[in-house]
């Protein structure tokens, strides 16, 4: 990819205070049985902002991010995405889901469809796009994530990194305004992590609103506008990458950083 020199100039230090709100969470709580997974989580994410959510495993990061496109249902509080409140109303959920792209840890590509069909299926049937147009767009997206030559293969024939890039292209094909990443590199071999992170950096620089759950500290430092640290279902600390990594205020944050750095 030729964006390498761009990537060095990070997206941080942007002034987003006047940008409109994209995701608003107010006192969101969720229980699995008796176990409280989310405890009054409140946060606002602005348009074009890149937020990285850090935290030990079991801290509720994935649950939170999955609540935002209602793969999980929150039980208390409210979540508003691009001005639409998430309730049980099916129409709202469909509207939100077509605004929000999601990338999973396990890729979750459709194994019975070729790569190209993986990308075009939703635009054709959900967005009602003409087939030719959808295929042109898919080809362009596969080019953008750097695997145009794999369009006619099945997902099972690709490496993990390539599969995750197809998954990103599939999400982008719906032309979402927000992208959610749920540990996108955790299931990858080390040598494939970079190719996925490069795609994500390029995406962040293009102005996409992004929420990323990850353990990649390098990515967080380089690309994030803001870091949210979670533990025990609560937001413990929020801050710019510089402040968060060099000067954490909370003890739990310090403990976590000492373990991963």
């Amino acid at each position: 990819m030729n964006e390498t020199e761009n990537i060095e100039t990070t997206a941080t230090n942007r002034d987003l205070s006047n940008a409109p709100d994209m995701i608003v969470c107010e006192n969101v709580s969720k229980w699995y049985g008796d176990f409280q997974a989310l405890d009054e989580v409140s946060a606002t994410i602005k348009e074009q902002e890149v937020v990285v959510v850090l935290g030990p495993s079991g801290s509720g990061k994935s649950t939170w991010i999955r609540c935002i496109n209602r793969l999980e249902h929150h039980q208390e509080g409210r979540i508003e995405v691009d001005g639409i409140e998430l309730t049980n109303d099916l129409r709202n959920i469909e509207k939100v889901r077509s605004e929000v792209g999601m990338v999973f840890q396990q890729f979750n590509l459709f194994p019975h469809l070729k790569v190209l069909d993986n990308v075009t299926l939703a635009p054709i049937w959900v967005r009602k796009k003409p087939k030719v147009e959808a295929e042109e767009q898919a080809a362009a997206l596969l080019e953008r994530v750097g695997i145009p030559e794999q369009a006619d293969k099945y997902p099972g024939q690709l490496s993990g990194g390539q599969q995750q890039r197809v998954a990103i292209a599939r999400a982008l094909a719906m032309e979402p305004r927000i992208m959610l990443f749920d540990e996108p590199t955790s299931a990858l071999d080390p040598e494939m992590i970079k190719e996925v992170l490069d795609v994500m950096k390029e995406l962040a620089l293009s102005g996409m609103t992004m929420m990323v759950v990850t353990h990649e500290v390098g990515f967080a430092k380089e690309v994030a506008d803001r870091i949210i640290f979670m533990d025990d279902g609560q937001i413990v600390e929020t801050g710019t990458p510089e402040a968060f990594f060099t000067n954490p205020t909370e003890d739990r944050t310090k403990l976590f950083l000492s373990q991963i750095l």
Partner: protein
Amino acid sequence: MTISGVEGTVSIKPPPETPKLPPREWLKENLFSSPFNGFLTIVSTATLLMIGRGLLSFIFNPERQWGSTSTNLRLMMTQAYPEEQYMRVWVCVGIIFTLVGLSMAIWNTGSRITLRRLGSFLLSTGVVIDVLTLLAPFSSQAKMIWLIIGSAVIATGGALLRTDEKNQDVSTLTLMVATLTAAILALWVVPFGHHSFVFDRTPRSLAETGTVALTTKLPWTIMLLIGVLAYFSGKTLTTRFPSKNLRPTIIGIWFLAPPTLLYLILRDPDFDMGHVLNTDLPIFLIFAVIGGILLTWFTRPTTGEIGRVGAALILLAGFGMFFTPMRMIIRILMLLLAIFALAAPTFAGDTKTRRRYAVAWVGLSGIVTWLVTAVNTPSTIEVPGDFFIGGVSLTLMVAIFTIVISFPIGILLALARTSKMPIFRILSTWFIEFVRGIPLITILIFFSIMVPMFLPRGMELSEVSAIIIGYSLFSAAYLAENVRGGLQSVTRGQHEAAEAVGMTTSQKTFFIVLPQALRVSIPPLVGHCIGVFKETSLLAIIGLFDVLYIARNVIPNQTEFLGSTRENLLFVSLIYFFFAYQMSKASQRLEQRVGLGER
């Protein structure tokens, strides 16, 4: 050595060749590696030889009345189908052969087999022939002939094994056609004898010497030619048209074939043209036009909730028509239109997609109209008894209709049982558990005797149709459980990924979940189909003339062949085995084919 793989053509180092053991050492390693192993080998060989000898002396015992089988072949195939109309049966067989030939070409069936493997296959076949000949209670002359045949096969195999071009291969299709040609040539050359029934005042059978009757060998020769011709025309078709158009067309024709062959060709319906032109055609045209316009409107992406309400209204109207006197065809078309309207939002899209949807409606409603008309038209084939055809034809007919009808019902039941909506879930669970708790024979008896009595006045249902309906419901319950297993194997991640790109539940089911679930359930589903085919033999118990009933009750009661049950049962079991084995082979090929995109 080069291999063309994922990354194009690359040169690779060939693996070291496994040294081929000389026969003596191969025997030692595989059959006599230890004293106990050697003992087992000897005992099992002796047992096999004894079984073979017993079977052969049963078959070739002079007391066996094999004439009962060969004289009654037509009875076993089609029961009392009138001889002067037999052309119709051959037309059906011809159409099936055409379709088989076309499909084989379009799906590119057949593989290549190396001369070496062919050689060793022939070698072992020849050895088996010789051994069996030695065991069989033949006359010395027959023994000589068979020994010579066996040795000739061995010699051919040996020659093939010894050629320099061992790795050259031939197509299995060529071999198949060669074998079939040889078999049909044998009909013209070998004096199998000519057995026939003469229906005089006292029916008697005739056994003449010479080759088989012209009415047997000529049609089969033509059938083979038709099959080969169809294959080559299929090959030309594949060069002209893309396979993504050809394959769905052929699949559609395959689905249309059973009712067409049955109602249009075999039954020779006596269409009342005046009625068709005055009533059926206008009804179809009205439905086609109005339905087409409605559906083009329903499939607009912007229609939204009004479309759903409209579809529900059509469904209500369709149900309402069952309570008012109305032509059956109107009721059925109304329900079909409701189904199309309900599915419309799933298939909404650009103009091309919407036009295709409307065309699908016109086509399907046309087929349904024609089918209902054909079913309601009386047959002109005069046969004694209840149903116009029996024997293998009846067995196959019931099996095919049951399988085809129970598939969609079974899938719907499985989806309902796994659905989140409690009413559907409870209803389908109860249905499945209820049907699975009842023996098949009970259901068959119930549908053959009771159901025709409960029908509303003016509605008639032949015994065979009633049985097919009952059997389909039974089969659907089992099929639903197989499909449910497949549905559960689709991971949660797949559901989430489909939901995350904004698909509705029906889109998710149709495009993501079902294709994966059905692929996983191919082995149990094919097992189920084989079961359905074999269990049609229960029809014999309720007195339908299926092939088993004919073999067990009809033929052994003919004056010439009294008590010839065992011969005919053996023959019938061969027929069942032939079809069941073909299904099993087809499923293996299908598994290999769809295994391509496996995770």
